[in-house]
Each structure stands twice: as structure tokens, then as C-alpha cells.
């Protein structure tokens, strides 16, 4: 009897820290972020760049790139608080392939516009952390683009334990009961710059919020899936917002010709603004036609 009690006591003392450890792993926050400001204005000691008047040559050649994360600066990149990192999907929120896929989605959407001649997808390897406009000038030379859409993202994942996590004490519960509650907040932001003039033309964000649940064992897999879906949903919303912002920008260009100059390449007849107008030749013929009618009527 005494042996049995002793065995139970030892078992309890061994499993208690393990259960406490895996329970503790399951709560925490993970954040992945990149910043256009950190990329374009890395050194605050330098004077602020004064933008010029952008000259938009139609059709446009547009580049699209994710700004690199600058983990050396401390404030951005990937962070996690609480829990045990391996349970939180690791440090890479977006792989290069995923970035390329998302950029391709955006590019496919904007290729249909006749005022866009081509869209170049620029891999992250070509952008240096804190590269600023000097780096953009290099991109401009390499890819022959006039305008660049810089994409940045901010994703925060929260993991909390629900009441169901009590079943983890049975060990089996950790495998089959979804006691983990996950919240994934994602924002992707597109900032469109005219490289030569250093002028920001417009920006458009896309956001998503995903709530999910997971068992303790498949938590990291579930978080990765939520992260991926969060980026997809945010990218879709960003594309819609980009459409809207582009339309407003075109209106702004029309209203403020002193601030934006539009130049058409010879032979270019496409464009986003159509006008129904009578040409001078037809008008002259019509004036003659009407003149005859009124002259005839006067005589009658």
C-alpha cells in the first residue's frame, strides 16, 4: 500500500512540471512586421527628403516589392512574448515564395488596366534593409520601372487557453481537445511611390482578423494556417482598397494639374479616363447643316 502511494507521488511530481510546461507554452503573442518608414527613412539624422513634382509617363511601368524587415534595429521584425517559440510558427511569417505569390495576385489584378504597361515583381533580395531611395534608384535602373508599390505587413498572433485546456491534464486531451484559442490580426499596406520625384502617390491598407482554435499538439500548424489565411484575406482587401485609392488618385491628378504632370507616350491611346466628345470637323459640318435649316425656316 505504501509502495503504491509512493509511486503515485513520484508520478505526480514528474508529470506536474511537464503539464505545467506544455500549458505555459500555449499562451503568448507573436508579432511579425516590416515598415516602409524604416526602409525609406532609416537615418533620422538626415534631412527629410523633399518630394518633387511627379511626371507620370503613360503607360506606366510599375514595380512591386515587399520591404525587407530590419531585425537589427530591434523594434521590428519578429518578436514573441510568452510561451515557447517552437510552438509559435517560427520567425518567418512570410516566405519568399508566399511573398512572390501575393505580389503576383496584386500584379494580375492591375495588369488589366491599359494605362499600366508592365508590372515587375522585385524579389526581396534586391532590397536592402534601410536602403532608402538610393536603393529604389538602383531598382529603377535594373527593372526600368518609374513607379513602385512597396508592400509592408504587420501580423500579430495571440494564443490563449480556454476552459477546455483543463483536459490537458489527461494527456490525451492535449491531442484531441481544441483548448487553444488563437487570434490573428494582419495588416498589409501598399504605398505607391514615384521613384524619381520621391513623391508618395497613394497608399492602401488591407486588414484581416481570424479567430481559430487548436489542440495543444497541432497549435503551431494551426497558427501557420491562420497566418497564411490572414495574409491572403488582407491582400484581397488591399487590392480592393488599391482600386478605390487609384480611382481617387486619378481624380486628384485631374483636379491638381500643378502637383502631378501626366505625359502620354506617342502612340498611346489607352487610359483610365474616357471622354465622349464631338470632333471639330463634325461640329463644323453640323453648324453648316443647322445653318441651312434655320435659313430655310426663316424664308418660310
Amino acid at each position, binding site marked *: 500500500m505504501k509502495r503504491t502511494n509512493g509511486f503515485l507521488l513520484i508520478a505526480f511530481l514528474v508529470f506536474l512540471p511537464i503539464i505545467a510546461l506544455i500549458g505555459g507554452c500555449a499562451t503568448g503573442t507573436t508579432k511579425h512586421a516590416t515598415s516602409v518608414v524604416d526602409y525609406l527613412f532609416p537615418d533620422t539624422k538626415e534631412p527629410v527628403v523633399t518630394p518633387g513634382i511627379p511626371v507620370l509617363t503613360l503607360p506606366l511601368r510599375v514595380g512591386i516589392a515587399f520591404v525587407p524587415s530590419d531585425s537589427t534595429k530591434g523594434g521590428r521584425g519578429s518578436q514573441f512574448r510568452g510561451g515557447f517559440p517552437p510552438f509559435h510558427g517560427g520567425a518567418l511569417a512570410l516566405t519568399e515564395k508566399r511573398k512572390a505569390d501575393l505580389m503576383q495576385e496584386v500584379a494580375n489584378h492591375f495588369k488589366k488596366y491599359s*494605362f499600366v504597361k508592365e508590372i515587375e515583381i522585385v524579389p526581396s533580395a534586391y532590397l536592402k534593409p534601410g536602403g532608402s531611395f538610393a536603393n529604389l534608384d538602383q531598382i529603377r535602373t535594373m527593372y526600368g520601372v518609374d513607379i513602385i508599390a512597396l508592400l509592408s505587413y504587420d501580423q500579430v498572433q495571440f494564443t490563449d487557453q480556454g476552459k477546455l485546456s483543463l483536459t490537458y491534464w489527461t494527456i490525451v486531451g492535449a491531442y484531441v481537445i481544441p483548448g487553444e484559442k488563437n487570434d490573428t490580426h494582419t495588416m498589409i499596406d501598399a504605398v505607391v511611390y514615384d521613384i524619381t520625384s520621391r513623391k508618395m502617390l497613394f497608399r492602401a491598407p488591407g486588414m484581416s482578423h481570424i479567430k481559430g482554435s487548436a489542440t495543444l499538439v497541432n497549435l503551431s500548424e494551426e497558427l501557420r494556417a491562420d497566418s497564411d489565411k490572414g495574409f491572403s484575406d488582407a491582400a484581397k482587401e488591399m487590392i480592393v482598397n488599391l482600386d478605390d485609392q487609384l480611382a481617387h488618385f486619378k481624380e486628384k491628378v485631374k483636379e491638381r494639374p500643378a502637383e502631378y504632370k501626366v505625359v502620354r507616350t506617342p502612340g498611346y491611346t489607352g487610359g483610365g479616363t*474616357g471622354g465622349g*466628345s464631338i470632333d471639330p470637323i*463634325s461640329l463644323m459640318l*453640323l453648324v453648316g447643316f443647322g445653318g441651312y435649316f434655320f435659313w430655310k*425656316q426663316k424664308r418660310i
Partner: protein
Amino acid sequence: MEAEAHLTAVRFPVWTLVICASAVLIFNSPELRTLLIYDRAAITHGELWRLVTGNLVHLSNTHLAYDLVAFLIAGTIIEIRCYRFFPTLCLSAAILIGIILYGVEPGMYFYAGLSGVVTAAITYLCLHGLTEKGMWRWLCAAMLAGVIAKIGIELMLDQSFLLSVGTEEFVPVPLSHLIGTVTAILLFLMSLSASLEHPKNAL
């Protein structure tokens, strides 16, 4: 006899003046222009009136002047000669232009201008002129041939005659002229068949 009565009893071109006054009012009010222009994104979000009102918005002084002078001439003659269904023609042409451009020109964010409706009015006027006698009939036939030839050339070259002389900030849309002409032909045929069925309702 009836035709002479039409010519002698001069009618006030109410619809023509209302439409021209609306276009001038809208042109001089940036708020109205923003609210009424054919804006694809706004239409997608439910602002369907823009499909019609975009025809009343103009983008520059020249754009407004050319369209208004042409519409004043064509509309006034139509109303003076009491050709029926003129308001219906203007409205149906405007609606069809908006809807068809929305359907077939996804790359066009904005559209503005009365030229599609003007082309509809000129075509309608010329078609009615063909039913009359004398020099006027031949003039209308020549004008109609000119309009059709112009639209054909514009569509073949995919650009307007306007490009060769203008420096406008917009791209001319020959399709709107084609839609206007087709609308006028359809309405003319409908009014013709109505007048054949009920001879009292002359054209």
C-alpha cells in the same frame, strides 16, 4: 401640309435647353461633377445614377463647348420639327452608353461627355429627314452617311478624329458614338412602326 405646319409653328426647344443648362451647371460645380461623373469604382459600390449622369459631365471648356454647340443644333431642330420621343431618345442613349461602357470597358475608370447622346440626336434627326422631301432630305442622307463613315473609321483606327487636333487629358471613346447611333436607329424604327400601325400618330 402637316410638315409645313411643323415648320411654321416654332416650338421652344425645352428639353434641349434643360439638358444644356444642366451640363453647364454641372461643369461649374466641382461638387456636382464629383457626384455625377461616371466613376467605375463608385458605380460598383452602388452609385448607379452615374451610369446616366456621366453623360452630362464635361472635363474641359473645349469638351463642353463642342458637345453643347452640337447638341443645341441637333436638339433644337428635332424639337422645332416636333419629332417624337426626343426625351426618350436622350435618356435611353445615356442609359445604354453607361451600361455598355461599364460592361465592355473595365479599364475605364471615368467617363464624361454628351457626345454619345449628341450622335444619337444627329442620327435621329437625319433618319427623320429621310422621310421628308426636297434638299433637306439629301442633306440628311449625306449627314447620316458622314456620321456612319466617321464612326466606322473611328472604330477601325480605335481612335477619334479629336486626337489629331486636341490635347485633351482624356481618351476619346468612339464606342459611345456607335451606341448613340444604334439607339437612334432602334427608336426611329419603333416610332416608324408605331406610326404605320396608327397613322394618326405621324412621325
